[in-house]
């Protein structure tokens, strides 16, 4: 095997590819070959490095340097300076990476530990960093009930929005016997400002698969589906590739590891409906119907896809599972807060200096996230509020900056952690405008079945237009608040609420 003195990891997630990452990679290889460096320096593809609005990024190991906004024209100089002369090209270096050693500090990352570190299209890379050890351990050393217990003990809560304890969810379905059971991974990410699941799937698809496998074994499902929104073409391709490889390596299929357990994983594709992020709507969609939420009960755990017991979990939730199995629930429980152990992946957007993706301990305050991981506010702008949790989330103002953010604490402030999107607004932004955009979103994305949501959002939309046009009387806002409260209390599913 070749020994490489350096590895260049170039991110090829959907956004970077669109900005020419593939061409840059080709040029880089060519340039290295020109200088006869191609035997010394390896060029690899990887998932998102966690920087947004920085064009194509690439990381160099073991030098721990990240370059951003790399273009084709930069390649000759970059190769000459950094790889020939050994002097990192400061012009393109991302300050943040050096200053805070983020996101190159992996110790605390669980979900994203490999993202930006390994080639997501190679199962060998994943195996090389200890991948599928959890699957092996689960299948060969543990009983399904042990796994359910371990996940229960870990305190892992669903990362899809509501924060329902994952182990508890599994424990309802695991004991049901004599019927086909299913595991469905909810990757129908549609919450505005959220794309953590896309980055997880693009950056480390095998981790999601491993978590899915363990979940399936734990609840006794021999078939699992990953429901991905139709627009995520790269995710679909990477996951399909990963599934194919897993079959090839005997990690999926019949009698896995000689355990007698069979498992198949299939990808299901959505067609554009935010509401399908709601688990029963997602199930309706899988069955070829309009994505209208079902009456609950019965819960999917008892009657889900094709009336069979079905566990629906979010991508991020499941991506936590392998680590819980390999490192144990005690280890997991020590991370984050007692009520909500573990980490949380956020996407920080808006008026921060360095918009990006980060995985931090549960309970990290908004202030820390903005200042440390977002690099503070953009120069010259002042914090006004942050929309946390996507469109379904809530505006958090100054007073909330130091609240420890987890499902438990935020609930006390009637706020939700939701999907983990943080949209930071400066004081120049008109909240009414943003609100209009949020309401417009819901007016369109409501499934249309239920009055509070369908007519309610329309009514709010009309009110806000009135306010914008200066036609509203003073009690218009009071009316809106009353209505919003009524919608919250009477909506059928969480969308309206």
């Amino acid at each position, binding site marked *: 095997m070749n020994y490489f003195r350096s590895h260049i990891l170039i991110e090829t997630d959907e956004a970077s590819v*669109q900005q020419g990452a593939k061409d840059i990679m080709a040029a880089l290889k060519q340039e290295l070959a020109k200088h006869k460096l191609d035997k010394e320096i390896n060029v690899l593809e990887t998932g998102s490095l966690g920087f947004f609005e920085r064009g194509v990024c690439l990381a160099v190991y073991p030098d721990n340097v990240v370059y951003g906004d790399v273009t084709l024209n930069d390649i000759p100089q970059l190769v000459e300076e950094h790889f020939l002369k050994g002097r990192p090209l400061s012009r393109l270096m991302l300050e943040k990476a050096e200053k805070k050693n983020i996101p190159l500090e992996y110790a605390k990352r669980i979900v994203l530990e490999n993202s930006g570190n390994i080639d997501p299209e190679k199962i060998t890379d994943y195996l090389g960093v200890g991948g599928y050890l959890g699957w092996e351990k689960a299948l060969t050393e543990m009983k399904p009930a042990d796994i359910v217990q371990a996940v229960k003990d870990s305190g892992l809560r669903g990362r899809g929005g509501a924060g329902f304890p994952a182990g508890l969810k599994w424990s309802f379905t695991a004991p049901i016997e004599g019927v086909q059971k299913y595991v469905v991974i909810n990757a129908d990410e549609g919450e*505005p*400002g959220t*794309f953590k699941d896309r980055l997880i799937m693009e950056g480390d698809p095998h981790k999601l698969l491993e978590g899915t496998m363990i979940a399936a074994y734990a609840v006794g499902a021999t078939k699992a589906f990953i429901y991905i929104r139709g627009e995520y073409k790269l995710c679909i391709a990477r996951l399909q590739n990963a599934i194919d490889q897993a079959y090839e390596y005997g990690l999926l299929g019949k009698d896995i590891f000689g355990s007698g357990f069979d498992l198949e994983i299939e990808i299901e594709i959505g067609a*554009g409906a*935010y509401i399908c992020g709601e688990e029963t709507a997602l199930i309706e969609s899988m069955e*070829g119907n309009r994505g209208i939420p079902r009456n609950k009960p019965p819960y999917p755990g008892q009657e889900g896809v094709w009336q069979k017991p079905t566990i629906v979990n979010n991508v991020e939730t499941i991506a936590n599972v392998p680590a819980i199995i390999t490192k144990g629930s005690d280890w997991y429980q020590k991370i984050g807060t007692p009520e909500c152990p573990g980490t949380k992946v956020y996407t920080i957007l808006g008026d921060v200096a360095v918009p*990006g993706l980060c995985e931090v301990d549960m309970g990290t305050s908004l202030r820390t996230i903005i200042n440390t991981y977002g690099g503070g506010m953009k120069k010259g702008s002042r914090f006004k509020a942050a929309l946390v949790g996507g469109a379904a989330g809530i505006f958090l103002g100054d007073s909330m900056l130091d609240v420890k953010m987890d499902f438990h604490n935020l609930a006390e402030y009637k706020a939700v952690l939701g999907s983990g999107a943080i949209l930071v607004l400066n004081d120049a932004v008109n909240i009414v405008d943003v609100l209009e955009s949020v309401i417009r979103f819901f007016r369109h994305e409501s499934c249309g079945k239920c009055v509070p949501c369908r007519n309610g959002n329309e009514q709010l939309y009309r009110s806000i237009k009135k306010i914008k046009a200066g036609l509203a009387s003073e009690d218009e806002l009071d009316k809106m608040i009353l209505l919003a409260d009524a919608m919250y209390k009477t909506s059928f599913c969480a969308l309206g609420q």
Partner: protein
Amino acid sequence: MYQEIFKKYRPTKDNLIYILHDIQDNDPHNYVSEEAVQSVSEYLKVPVNHIYGVLTFYTMYSTKPRGKNVIRLCESPPCFIKGCDNILNKLKETLGVESGETTTDGLFTLELCACLGLCGNAPVMMINDEFYGDLTEDKAETIINTIREERA
């Protein structure tokens, strides 16, 4: 004429979403026609009204003929804050159509859509399967003109 597509899928209702995707992707006008719906209904033994209900529920489908290039501009809050309204106006101006309409040369259809999950590069649009991020008015115009030249 849809038999080639049907061959790939078992005739069960849960394949409806895929079949509709496949039909639309292979249609020169990027839509699912009445005839297609009728064929699918016969193949899957699912009533026409159900298929129509599904078609109109999901935003990726169209029941009306569209241009060769379907532009879907995100109007969700992150893109909104970054000025997608200006991009929309620019696109309308460049294309000479309102949102939901197709240019007379049949090259473009302009649509608005909800979050595409590329908020790090807001404002974002998709043209067919391609993403275009960090849009400015100039950039949007250039993209349209490039496609127009390439595919005219």
